[in-house]
């Protein structure tokens, strides 16, 4: 379990760093939803399935959707 958790944490850190470097904001949004997805896995591994479900529904689906809508209203590429 500790190995899966370590791999997940490094994956999460990589996704969080890649958000910073993407110039295409749509890619950045997908990477930030990956951060939430790995957080879901971590919550599940820490035996908090209730929190994992809330994170999966809100962090992965709804926040990503709202960011996508916001990008559609504004600009897609960072200057």
């Amino acid at each position, binding site marked *: 379990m500790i190995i899966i958790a370590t791999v997940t944490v490094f994956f999460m850190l990589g996704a969080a760093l890649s958000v910073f470097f993407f110039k295409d904001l749509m890619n950045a949004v997908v990477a930030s939803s990956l951060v939430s997805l790995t957080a879901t896995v971590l919550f599940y591994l820490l035996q908090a399935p209730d929190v994992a*479900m809330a994170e999966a529904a809100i962090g992965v*689906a709804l926040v990503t*959707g709202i960011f996508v809508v916001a990008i559609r209203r504004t600009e897609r590429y960072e200057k």
Partner: protein
Amino acid sequence: MKELLSLRGLIALFLLVVIGVGIFSAVGKIPFGQPDSEVGSAYLEDGRQETGAANTVTSVVVGYRALDTLGEVAVLFIAATGLSTILATSKKRIDRKLEDASLVLKTGCRVFFPMILLFGAYLFIHGHLTPGGGFQGGAVIGSAFLLTYLGCSGRRVSRTASRSLESLSGFGFVFLGLIGLMVGESYFLSNFLPKGELYSLLSAGIFPLIYILIGLKVGAEFAGVIDSMIEESR
């Protein structure tokens, strides 16, 4: 311009360091995985007997801390109302031509929409037995509506239906609490119904009722928020 940007970057970095040090000094000294408070272990030991809910998280959220849950629901209600008010009053409307969704997304939203709704309903009806509950179920239902708005464009949630469902379930939550104040152990949101048998669907008194109301309310709120984000501000 560049100087300003770097100044902004420096300020952001400084704030991040301050936040990091603050969080670390607050929670860094707590040993990992060891309960530090007696309240938590009391809930874990006596929660099932006292409330009749198999899921201890539920017994905390709608039992011991039901008033906090009412506050959370109120915060969500205020946020949703404020968002729809701001978006409805803004005059600037840009009519943009939307790309048609792909065949995969269209078919997927038709196939998965009822399944996701059913899963959300399962989450909040079984909130006192299995992991999940009103907020999670409501958020899952909201994500089902998000899929519909992305895939099957043209279909909309009825504004009056979502508003009235939201208000009625919020009213029902407070009303249940008031009944508990009158009949049960005479405090707000007391569990006045029989506890029933542990692990059966009709157990834990008013917990399933409250979670069904919260699930409907949160689902209707998220659907309304998505509707006002996508349609009103188009």
